[in-house]
């Protein structure tokens, strides 16, 4: 299964590109198309970008080429747009042709809608579908087939703290990651462009797009976010990094018109789209917004309402400050009433309710290639479960229609054996982050053990001592690859096999040999002692009951290390406590996963010591950077090198970014600050239980938090076969 999966993903990644479209790149218009021979490193979206200034125009090439190929055998038929080969002769349509194809794929006035909406239109309570859709609706590709309307997707959630369950399903952002995670595609925004040096980014909106209550979505909704949320100190104490220039000043955002907004950075920013693709209210944090329904949230903002009136609202809602009330009302899933741009909007319930339902948004901007307004499914219902075991049991009983979150990989055999009875199928979406269980050594630990943690040879020996195959068999059901925490082989950032598998063979003798050079003394109990004679007992901090049985991984590693004379023990802690101990530099060693290698320069990569939340890599170095060297611990040259690479990549063009990322992961794997064990398994939200009748759920998908899986797979186009 994995071979096929990898080759598919490699293909998909090959044809997609993160290269942002630069405005004005299109050549002068020609009357007819051109004949072109495929060169090395070509892919269709790249050609489309070069020819028409839009990588998403590649279906036009396929269409016209294949039309031509049926008439003229000189042209090669493109059967799969993801697979082209060097030497093929293809027909590239003229920009006019391409434009005509793209615009004309759905004739105006031919949109269809769900029966429930048609009834409302007939009753006069809702405008007709052509008026509800934007002038240029988002045409969402379907995974396999054009769907049918109706049905409910039932999911389970674990209460208010499980708010991201909603966030992942709706993936309500201006731009989105594509299903494989390989590229950024337009969503609410119609498109974007940047200047030559990537300092100015213009985001184009869709004229006629509307919020779920029918109010128009315009540049003002982004400007409200900028002026009244981001720049309001009561709401946001410190500007998030993606909206900061290098000197700490805030990035400028201006309205160019009703449907265009420009971001201006002081330095080149090649990560802009990746950041924008995650500004969807994730983690129920207003820091993760980039647009809000201004007409709705104004009523909770002191700049727009009378102080006394606002105080009354705050008191009525039981809050102390307007900022608290605003933070709730700015999020659809917390408010229940706030209009949304997503395919489904809350029906008045919120994540605090035992049953949280989101219903079809009659104004959703997307249609399928046949012109049917999405979503196909009427509603998504989240039912509260007190614990994940109960949720898994419900899934086995067939009471969950589409869910990977909280589905435990260890239950996979149970799911498979009951699939027919429960009326579901199981789809595996392995994560590509790197390693699903890593051991991170704290480089700034304050105890005497740090001498060992900072010793590269010690870390190498500890890596050799681990029997990764046992971990794979016992914890990961024999799935996955024994590897370090570096990107997947199909990622452009992959540093190569040599580095991915460095120090991963199980060799206790070699480990002993290295350790005898580093920490030769042993105590009466046979365990190695620190050079000063004090005993070494490494504490491995683990949070049980997470996605992976990291506590079991910890037990296995403790045994492996004991065999080479290094004493360690697992300390299980509750999640909140563990998360508080990390930044406080109270963890010696911890086990978590390495899931950030796919996105090394955005978000909070775990190998960037400045990230928070991240693992206990070097918490005091983070403080050093935060305080500009006033407090904390100065980074070692290697750590400094990592930081420099990340900083350079953030302002580099794509090609250089890839080089830098590979360099970064070579350093990362070579230094084993973090010992990787088993990776590329579906353990983190990758065992997906899908109703047997639910279609268009892709068999292969990128699975990662930045992709908001399953949001990246376009849940709008899931449908029930009737």
């Amino acid at each position, binding site marked *: 299964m994995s071979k096929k999966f990898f080759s598919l993903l490699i293909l998909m990644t090959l044809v997609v590109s993160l290269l942002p479209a630069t405005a004005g790149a299109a050549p002068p218009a020609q009357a007819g198309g051109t004949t072109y021979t495929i060169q090395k490193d070509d892919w269709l979206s790249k050609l489309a970008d070069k020819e028409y200034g839009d990588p998403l125009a590649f279906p036009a090439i396929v269409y016209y080429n294949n039309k031509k190929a049926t008439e003229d055998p000189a042209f090669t038929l493109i059967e799969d747009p993801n697979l082209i080969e060097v030497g093929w002769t293809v027909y590239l349509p003229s920009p006019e042709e391409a434009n005509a194809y793209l615009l004309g794929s759905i004739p105006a006035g031919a949109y269809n809608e769900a029966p429930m909406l048609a009834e409302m239109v007939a009753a006069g309570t809702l405008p007709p579908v052509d008026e509800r859709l934007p002038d240029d609706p988002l045409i969402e590709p379907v995974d396999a087939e054009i769907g049918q309307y109706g049905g409910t997707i039932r999911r389970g959630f674990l209460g208010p703290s499980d708010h991201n369950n909603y966030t992942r399903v709706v993936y309500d952002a201006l731009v989105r990651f594509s299903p494989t995670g390989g590229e950024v595609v337009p969503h609410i925004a119609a498109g974007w462009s940047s200047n030559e040096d990537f300092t100015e980014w213009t985001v184009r909106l869709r004229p006629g797009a509307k919020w779920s209550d029918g109010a128009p979505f315009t540049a003002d909704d982004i400007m409200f976010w900028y002026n009244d949320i981001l720049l309001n100190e009561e709401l946001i104490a410190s500007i998030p990094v993606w909206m900061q220039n290098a000197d700490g000043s805030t990035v400028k955002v201006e309205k160019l018109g009703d449907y265009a907004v420009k971001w201006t950075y002081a330095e080149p920013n090649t990560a802009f789209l990746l950041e924008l693709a995650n500004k969807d209210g994730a983690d129920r944090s207003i820091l993760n917004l980039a647009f809000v329904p201004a007409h709705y949230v104004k009523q909770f903002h002191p700049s727009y309402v009378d102080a006394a009136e606002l105080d009354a609202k705050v008191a009525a809602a039981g809050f102390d400050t307007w900022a608290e009330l605003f933070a709730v009302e700015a999020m659809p899933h917390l408010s229940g009433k706030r209009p949304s741009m997503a395919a489904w909007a809350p029906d008045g319930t919120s994540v605090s309710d035992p049953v949280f339902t989101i219903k079809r948004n009659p104004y959703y901007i997307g249609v399928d290639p046949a012109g049917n307004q999405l979503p196909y499914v009427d509603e998504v219902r989240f039912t509260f479960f007190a614990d994940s*075991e109960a949720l*898994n*049991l419900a899934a*086995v009983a067939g009471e969950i229609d589409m869910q990977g979150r909280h589905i*435990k990989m*260890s*239950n*996979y*055999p*149970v799911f*498979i*054996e009951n699939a027919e009875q429960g009326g579901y199928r199981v789809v595996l979406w392995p994560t590509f982050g790197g390693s699903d269980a890593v051991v991170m050594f704290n480089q700034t630990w304050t105890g005497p053990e740090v001498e060992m943690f900072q010793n590269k040879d010690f870390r190498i020996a500890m890596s050799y001592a681990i*029997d990764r*195959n*046992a971990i794979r*068999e*016992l914890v990961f*059901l*024999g*799935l996955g690859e024994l590897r370090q925490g570096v990107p997947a082989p199909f990622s452009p950032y992959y540093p190569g096999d040599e580095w991915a598998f460095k120090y991963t063979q199980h060799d206790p003798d070699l480990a002993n040999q290295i350790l005898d050079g580093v920490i030769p003394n042993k105590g009466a109990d046979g365990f190695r002692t620190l050079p000063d004679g004090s005993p070494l007992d490494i504490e491995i901090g683990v949070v*049980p009951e997470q996605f992976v*049985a990291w*506590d*079991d991984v910890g*037990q*296995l590693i*403790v*045994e492996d290390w004991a065999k080479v004379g290094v004493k360690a*023990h*697992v*300390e*299980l*802690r*509750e999640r909140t*406590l563990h998360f508080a101990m990390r930044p406080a530099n109270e963890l010696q060693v911890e086990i978590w996963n390495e899931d950030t290698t796919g996105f090394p320069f955005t978000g909070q990569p775990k190998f960037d010591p400045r990230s928070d939340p991240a693992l206990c890599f070097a918490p005091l170095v983070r403080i050093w950077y935060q305080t500009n060297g006033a407090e904390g611990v100065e980074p070692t040259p290697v750590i400094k090198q990592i930081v420099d690479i990340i900083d350079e990549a953030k302002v580099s063009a794509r090609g250089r970014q890839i080089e830098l990322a590979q360099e970064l992961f070579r350093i990362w794997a070579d230094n084993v600050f973090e010992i990787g064990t088993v990776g590329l398994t579906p353990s983190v939200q990758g065992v997906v239980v899908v109703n047997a009748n639910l279609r268009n759920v892709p068999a292969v998908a990128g699975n990662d938090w930045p992709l908001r899986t399953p949001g990246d797979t376009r849940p709008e186009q899931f449908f029930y076969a009737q």
Partner: protein
Amino acid sequence: MTVSPDSPVMAPTPDDKRPLPTNGEVAVSLAGLVEDAEAIYVAPNWKLVWWRFKRHRLALISGVVLIAVTIVALFPEFFSTQDPNQTSATKSFIPVQAVHFFDEGRLRPYVYGVQGQRNPASLRMEWQIDEATRIPVRFFAKGYEYELLGFIPTNIHFLGVASPEAEEAIHLLGTDRLGRDQWSRLMHGSQVSLSIGLVAVFMSIFFGILLGGISGYFGGLADLVIQRLIEILQSLPPIPIWMALTAAMPRDWSVQQVYFAITVILSLIGWTTLGREVRGRFLALREEDFVVAAQLAGCSQMRVIFRHMVPTFTSHIIATSTLAIPVMIINETFLSFLGLGLRPPAISWGVLLQEAQNLQSIVLAPWLLLPGLAVIITVLALNILGDGLRDAADPYA
């Protein structure tokens, strides 16, 4: 009050040929009773209790069961077949293996070998009994090394494979998800679970007698304060209190610290009932003539309490505490089951059950729930024994 010789109720003379008014059986038992009565008259208290207790068959059987459990709890390593923490990548979820005692009519115990492989579709480890392989099993076999009672190094185990060098192993109760031997884990778990119960009860008894004694013997302000304290403690619902106390335990405590803290927490609530009982006894006894006599004879207060008063209700304390042990065991189990008590890598019955409380175990490896049976048997046995002891505690009743 003279009785005339011709009185009709004159006792029969030895040569009187008249039959006894009742049948012979009664006569025999009456004769026995006379002997018994004599024995009873001279028997010490413990003997009376024993005679009474013996008549409670079920309690007697429970006692035997408990002795067995206690022996296991004292020497868990001896009864283990494998190191309870030893994992094996190739041995997860092996089902229960039955021991066959007779091989071709001769007492030569063996188990069949098992062969397993991962089902490529469901990824489940599937085990088949391989009747071609017979793994001989021996009593007092050599196995992994350990220290009996913590100081006698040995490698003799009650049961084991004949040739452990050959990588053979038996799994009487199967293995868990990490390939650890469930039987050996159960053995080790019984040590922790039983000892927590015992230690907690002993601490309860200590607090109960001390505070109950003070309260009952001295009365007055001390009595008032202690009784109100007991009332407050008893008025609090125990489960939320335990949960709150265990949740408040610093999570960075080591396994040993948690173990000790749990016993203290359990006994903190547990002593109140006994305290009440002891106080009542003291109140009743302190006015008794023999106590007054002891006081008048110039005995110290300690002597009066421990030499004269406490022995009169020792049997009651024993009975009460026997009934308290199973409660403590259950409490430990459910706290650990809820993830609030002991945590892995500690092994207790509660921890074993907690590890089995997931879909995977219930559906695919039901043998992992067997520690529940151990809890049931032990708790039942303790309850029946306690019942028997309570009946027997007052032999004159």
